[in-house]
Structure formats: C-alpha cells, structure tokens
C-alpha cells in the first residue's frame, strides 16, 4: 500500500473556476475498518471511486480497489544492479589498473575484500534510486508545492474521493447518501486542477 501514500496529494491549486479543474467530493472516515467497509459498499453499488487516501498502508485495500502491483521494486532491482556493477567495477579498476597496492599480502584483485563494499553500494544505489523515482512519480520533493485534499489525510483520517465534475445534483445527493450510510465523519468538496 505504498501507493496510498504515493497519492496522498492531489493537485490542489488556486484555481476556482470549474472549467479549469475537477470538482472533488470526498468523505473523511475516522477508522480504517469503516473505510474498508465503505469501499466494499461502494463496489457493491458500482460507484466509481476516484481515489482513496490513507495516512498509512491499510491491509486488504489494494485488492478491493483493483490496484496493480507497484513496479517500484523493479526500479529498485535495476538501480541495485547498477550499484553492484559500479562498486565492483570501480574497485577492480582502482586496484588493478589505476593504483595497485598490496594489502596484507593479498593479491591486487581480492574479491572477498570487495564484497562488503559492493554490497553497500548495491543497497545505497537501490535505496537512493527508489526514493528518487518515488518522489518523481508522486510530484514530491524539495521545493514541490504540497498538494492534498485535506490536511488530516496525512494524520489520522481516511478519505474516499469521487470525481463530481460531470455529475448531476441527483447523483451527488446519491453519493452523499452513500457517505452517510457508511458512517462518514464529514463530507467536503474541493476544486483541484486537472
């Protein structure tokens, strides 16, 4: 459920004109069990959930929302492999070509001595690479404008959001009825850029 955090910000700008943005109708729940029940009820009613936001990963939410498996770990594998090859290759170059030094009577190309550093560089590259990719995908990072529907989604509230831009007032009333049936704490609307 890293994805829940990944999307914890939706584009929220200063635009108020509805023709340049999307009208989001969202309800806040105070408990993850209520949220799970509400998502099940929404699926049963064939409601088109736009997005769900949670302050932490909620077990069992991914299959309910039909989310695909994250591909972030594939990026991790690629970055890790690069780090592994870089670390090993760099040490090989240094100790056999550039600046050969004998340590403790060992051969120049001492593979066992390279393993810990190769391992550390694999972890470093995988970790830094994955965090960078994650930030780019989510539009986060230093200097990025925080975009979120509601401040408490990052604290203690669980949110189900619907896109109400093209909905009639009857349909919006239906969604509000759904929220009150599933024990919502509060319902809000907000216009966000497309």
């Amino acid at each position: 459920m890293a994805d829940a955090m990944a999307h914890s910000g939706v584009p929220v700008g200063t635009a108020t004109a509805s023709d340049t943005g999307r009208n989001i109708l969202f309800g806040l729940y105070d408990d993850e069990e209520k949220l799970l029940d509400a998502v099940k009820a929404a699926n049963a009613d064939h409601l088109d959930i736009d997005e769900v936001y949670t302050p932490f990963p909620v077990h069992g939410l991914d299959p309910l929302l039909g989310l695909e498996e994250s591909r972030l770990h594939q990026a991790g594998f690629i970055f890790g492999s690069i780090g592994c090859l870089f670390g090993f290759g760099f040490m090989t170059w240094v100790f056999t070509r550039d600046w050969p030094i004998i340590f403790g009577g060992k051969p120049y190309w001492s593979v066992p001595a390279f393993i810990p550093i190769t391992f550390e560089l694999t972890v470093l590259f995988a970790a830094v690479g994955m965090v960078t990719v994650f930030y780019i995908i989510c539009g986060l990072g230093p200097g990025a404008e925080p975009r979120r529907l509601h401040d408490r989604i990052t604290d203690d509230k669980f949110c189900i959001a619907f896109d109400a831009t093209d909905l009639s007032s009857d349909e919006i009333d239906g969604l509000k009825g759904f929220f009150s049936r599933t024990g919502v704490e509060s319902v809000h609307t907000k216009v966000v850029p497309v």
Partner: protein
Amino acid sequence: MENFVFSSRAKLITGGTALFGLLLLIFSYFVDGGEAHHMRFWTNLLHNASFFTGIAIIACFAYAAFTTAYAGWFVQFKRVWESFGMFILPGIFLFGVLIVGLWMHSHHLYHWNDEAAVLADPILTHKSAFLNPVWYTGATIIILAVYYWLISTIRKISIDEDTNGTTDYSHHKRIKKWAAPMLAAIGFTSPFLIWQWIMSIDAHWYSTMFAWYASASLFVAMTALTIMLLIYLKSRGYYPGINQEHFHDLGKYLFAISIFWTYVWFSQFMLIWYANVGEETIYFKLRMDQYPVLFWGNLLLNFIAPFFILMRNDTKRKMGTLFFASAIVFFGHWFDFFNMIKPGAREAMIEMVAHHDADHGEEHATMDAHAGDDHAAAGHDDHAAAGHGDDHGHAADDHAMASHDGDHGDAADHGHADLPFKSGFTIPGLLEIGIFLGFLGGFLFFVLSVLSRAPLEPKKDPYFEESLHHHT
C-alpha cells in the same frame, strides 16, 4: 478433522524409509573397516544426529521466541513445532550411542579424545579443560534433557488448554512463563552443543562465528521442513485455516534466514581470510583445495538458489515454488553440515594414523599402506581430485603450529598433500543420501505420531483467532 490421523500408508512409507536407513547405517559400519576406524559409519551417525536433533532444538527456540514476542500468526500450526521439539528425546538416545563410542574409543571422530595426541600437542592440552569426554557427555545429556523437560512441559500445558482452557487464559500465561526460560536456555547453551559436537572435530581450529553459523543453518532447515510438512498436511485436508498468507510469512523466514546464513558464512570466511592466521585459515584452505564441490556447492544450494527463487513476492505465495525452494535448502543445509563434519573428521583420522605410525617409527610405509586401503575399501575411489596438490600453505602453517613435533612433520605433510577422492567424504555418496533419507523418515515417523496424539489446532489459544485472520 480434530486430530491428525497417521494413516497406515504414511506409517509404512516413513517407517520403511527409517528401517532402510538403519540398515544402510549398519552397512556403512563395514564399508570402512577397522583400518579406517569405521569412520564412515560414525561420521554419518554424528552428521544426521546433530542435524535432526538441531532441527528439534531450533523448533523449540522459534516457538519460544514467537511466544515471548506476542506473535499470533504461527499459533495455528504450533503443534507441529511442539512435535518437532519432542524429537530431542530420540536425539538424546542418538548421542548416547556416540557418547558410548567416545568412552569406549570405538570412534576417532574427535582428535581431542586421543590422550597421547593431547599430551603431545600444546593446543589440544590447552583446550582439554573443555574438550574432554566428561564435558562432552555432561553437556550433551544435561542440556538436551533440560530442553526436553521445558518443551514437554509446554506441550502438556498447551494440550491441557484444549480441554480446560478458560477465558482468563491462565494456560497461555503459564506457557509464556515457560517459554521465556526456554528461550534463554537454548540461546545461551546451544553453542556448547555445537562446539562440542561439530566444531571440536577440527580440534585445532576455532571460530567465534561458528555457533551462529550452525544455528542459522538449522533454522533454515527447520523452516523448510515446516513448510514442506504443512503443505503435505494441507494436501490431506488438514489445517483449513492456513492459507497463502501463512506460507508467505514462512517463505519470508526461509528467505531472510538464508540471507542471514550467507551473511554469517561470509563474515566467518572473510575475517579468517583477511587475518590470515595459519591455525584459522587451515579450515577453509582444506575445504577450498581438497573439497571444492562441498565448499562451492554449499553456497550454490544455500545462497544462490533460495536468493533468486524466493526474491519475488509470488514465489513465496505459490505452494509449488515454495515446496521446491524448501526441498533445495533442506538438502542444502544437510549438505552444509556434511561440509562442516566430514573433511575435518577425515583429516583428524589421517593425523591420528600419522601420530600412531610415527610412534611405531614406520611413518611412510604405513601411511602409504593406509591410503591404499582407503582406496580398496571404498571401491569407487578416484584420484581425479588429487591433481591440485601443488601449493599447500596450510601444510607449512602446520609446521609452524606443530613445531614441537618436527620429526613428525613429514608424516603430516604426507597426510595433507594429496587426499584422494573418497565417496562419502569428498561428496555425499549413495550411502549418505540413503542414511539421510532414513533419518528423515525416522524423524517424520516420530513427529507425525506425536502430532496425531493431540488436536492439530489449539482452538482455545488466545491468539488462535488472530492466526486465522493473519494478513501479510
């Protein structure tokens, strides 16, 4: 479906395999005759006894650790680990045979059990306060008996809970009170067993990582056996509440402890390789030069295979791949114990023969005769592995280390220089595989019959419900 029913077919298969293994074990006594001190029989007995008793001990350890840590997910199948733990009792019997052999000098597994060799060797003399038959006997029997007492008490309370359990969970509280001392007891005393049983075969050598290393090996083997047994039980319709989520967690343990094993293996190797102290490096030098199949095969089976098979999420959630990976690492860690025991025991035997021969003043003649006998006895010997005897740093180390017996140096060199290939020592032979399967059959026969005596699912355990709803 309350109790596991140990069907007569399953009894026949496990019991039959055990009997077959016993016959092979007896047969192996005569393969290496008196000249070789029946080494093949004794090493096979020690190898399998320490491997399967170790699995029983580690099952107790895991049980105690999870119980003490308020873990709930494993509670459904905790009877399996209780049954594993009860195998310590047959383990005491198996080691009883080895202990009798130790006192009767029927086997030469341990160099330190040879009084003349100990007196002539300052290293062994120095270590004789710990490496002696009294310590071996006392530590093995007392420590195993304490483990058995703890696990059987816990099992009694756990079974009593099924009928007399109440909602104040007094049974569970009592289990916790017994599990904590069991955790400490196994954590602090199991290294003594591993040092005595296995590390002291290479009596000159020592490694502070060794107990970690062997325990990690046993933990992986125990997890693998648990997975395979649970898949079997599920296929027979038992444990309806165990699903992918539990197997996913067991698979993560299999993966994680395999990596931990590799980490300890490498730490032990690299510290010794870097420091380059003769009496430490000899252990690896011997194995890399003379037993390359054991040395590298060990890493292939226990690191490369599980790392790449179990790295993906879905392989831990599919029964087929998980069973496959478990079977590989279960055999792999048996192979790892083979690598710990056999080369050192063979080396100790050759050294011992060299010492005795030197005493009789006919070192070269008898050494050659001995090598010849080896060749004839095993029948399928092959000198293919004898080719890489050019540079033997450890032979020189031996000189430095054993400078007190400079006269015997030649004999020692002779022993080290060219160890011929010998099935059952250089790689596991068919006898070893058969005896391994026999012990496995005996272990399963014992565990399944213990398992059938109590309900499979501890339905009144306070964490049972949590275990049913486990989600990874």
